[in-house]
């Protein structure tokens, strides 16, 4: 198929429909509104349902109901709206329901702004909602990768019965790039023999979707079972890209849009003879700690670059585990990290100035 030029938000919708998603529940918010608009146009054409809910709270609970009923379903929002969805996300994780949640991040806290940011990293990877649960968080850095991760994301969600989040930002949502829709890798997906259809199964047994375990023993066991699943996900799904890390004096690290600014900075550093490499996490949870642990043996220092004032850097430090210094450079509030400033920071680090 020939490549098409698509806006990020619309490409997510197209990829979701290609992946068999037929239900979308959402609420408008900048900078992701093109996605629900696209779904409202395209889903009815394939026999799907688009519903604009009264709030993000309602939308995520509609996702809960639809997923519990066995459907491939998604929702999308941007930062303040994702905060509202957190209650539902915790229930979805607790009831082990598969779904895709898209966060096209904007600057916070509070109403914040509408320009791109990466300041929802903690919320996405460390909880956000209540309880001992994990979201699988995928962080693309191009429209093509966003499409690939959306399509694979639905399968990952089904395979592990776990919510999956695509963590983008305003830049990825708004920009256009060439895309083609590739089949994701084949996964063995378990049958949804738990879904409530109203029709009882052959043994006349009714089905229940619930995150309620009133007996402490039961709730502990449920949590232990979830932890086993999370360990399995860590083992199988951790994904990152590494660029010239082996002989690098300094390893830069960034995800999403920021990683593209960093890759420009690395080119500029090479021109002036500085050996720089990059680790780019593609899954933010599970986080690729091992990549940093290994790189810490050869690199002299690390520099984390984010569109926040330092969130992922905490995971980078856990990975590096004190073996080498980890520095940080970030811009926030919708301001983007600057390539020249990154280069200057690296020079200072390697020159022993900081």
């Amino acid at each position, binding site marked *: 198929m020939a490549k098409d*030029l698509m806006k990020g938000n619309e490409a997510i919708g197209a990829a979701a429909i290609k992946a068999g998603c037929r239900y979308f529940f959402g609420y408008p918010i900048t900078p992701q509104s093109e996605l629900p608009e696209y779904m409202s146009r395209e889903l009815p054409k394939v026999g799907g349902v688009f519903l604009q809910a009264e709030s993000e709270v309602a939308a995520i609970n509609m996702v809960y109901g639809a997923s519990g009923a066995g459907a491939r379903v998604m929702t999308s929002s941007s930062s303040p709206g994702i905060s509202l969805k957190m209650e539902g996300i915790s229930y979805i994780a607790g009831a082990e329901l598969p779904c895709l949640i898209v966060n096209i991040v904007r600057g916070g806290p509070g109403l914040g702004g509408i320009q791109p940011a990466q300041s929802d990293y903690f919320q996405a990877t460390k909880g956000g909602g209540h309880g001992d649960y994990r979201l699988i968080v995928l962080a693309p850095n191009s429209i093509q990768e966003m499409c690939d991760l959306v399509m694979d994301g639905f399968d990952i969600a089904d395979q592990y019965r776990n919510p999956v989040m695509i963590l983008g930002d305003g830049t990825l949502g708004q*920009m256009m790039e*060439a895309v083609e829709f590739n089949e994701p890798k084949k996964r063995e997906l378990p049958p949804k023999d738990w879904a409530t259809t109203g029709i009882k199964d052959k043994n006349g047994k009714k089905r229940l979707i619930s995150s309620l375990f009133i007996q402490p023993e039961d709730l502990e066991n449920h949590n232990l079972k979830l932890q086993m699943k999370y360990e399995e996900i860590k083992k199988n799904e951790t994904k990152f890209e590494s660029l010239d890390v082996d002989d690098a004096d300094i390893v830069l690290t960034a995800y999403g*849009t920021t990683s593209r600014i960093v890759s420009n900075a690395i*080119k500029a550093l090479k021109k002036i003879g500085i050996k720089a490499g990059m680790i780019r996490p593609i899954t933010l949870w599970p986080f690729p700690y091992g990549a940093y642990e290994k790189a810490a043996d050869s690199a002299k220092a690390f520099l984390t670059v984010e569109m926040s004032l330092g969130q992922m850097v905490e995971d980078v430090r856990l990975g590096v585990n004190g073996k080498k210094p980890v520095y940080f450079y970030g811009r926030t509030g919708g301001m983007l990290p600057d390539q020249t400033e990154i280069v200057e920071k690296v020079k200072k680090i390697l020159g022993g100035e900081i």
Partner: protein
Amino acid sequence: MVEQQIIIAGFGGQGVLSMGQILSYAGLLEGKNVSWLPSYGPEMRGGTANCNVIISEELVGSPIVKEADAAIIMNLPSLEKFEKFVVSGGNLLINSSLISEKTSRGDVKAYEIPANDIANEIGNAKVANMVMLGAYIELTKIVAKQSIIQSVEKVLGSSKGNLIQINEEALKRGAESVKCYK
């Protein structure tokens, strides 16, 4: 490596974003790597609009243009805001129909193109953006004129034959307008 990083800016409604899309799509048609990044704000109409376009033979790194090989400037506020982003020796295309001021940059190649006047002569004020685009591709040859026409067809739909003709004429007149600089 052939690469062009472009800033296109003007009022909302001047076809700034669609000019960038048409240029990007033309690059895609020629098998190049492209990115198009719009500014976005709370206003629906009447504000300023700009977009960053990158056309490259290599994979596009950051889609954000900070060092522009060229800027296409449709109105005065955009000149003041964006002329500083053009690299030394880069192309600065100025819509002189609406901008009487000169650029403050002495180290760039400035082109004054009366885009609105030309568009009015052709008979459709809306194609001022295509006049600018015609001038731009004449200067850089980053994509062929034919690819631009193909992508206009894609954007407008091939049934709008008359509009496509006017767009073609606009591209041609834009190209002619910068030949005198050579």
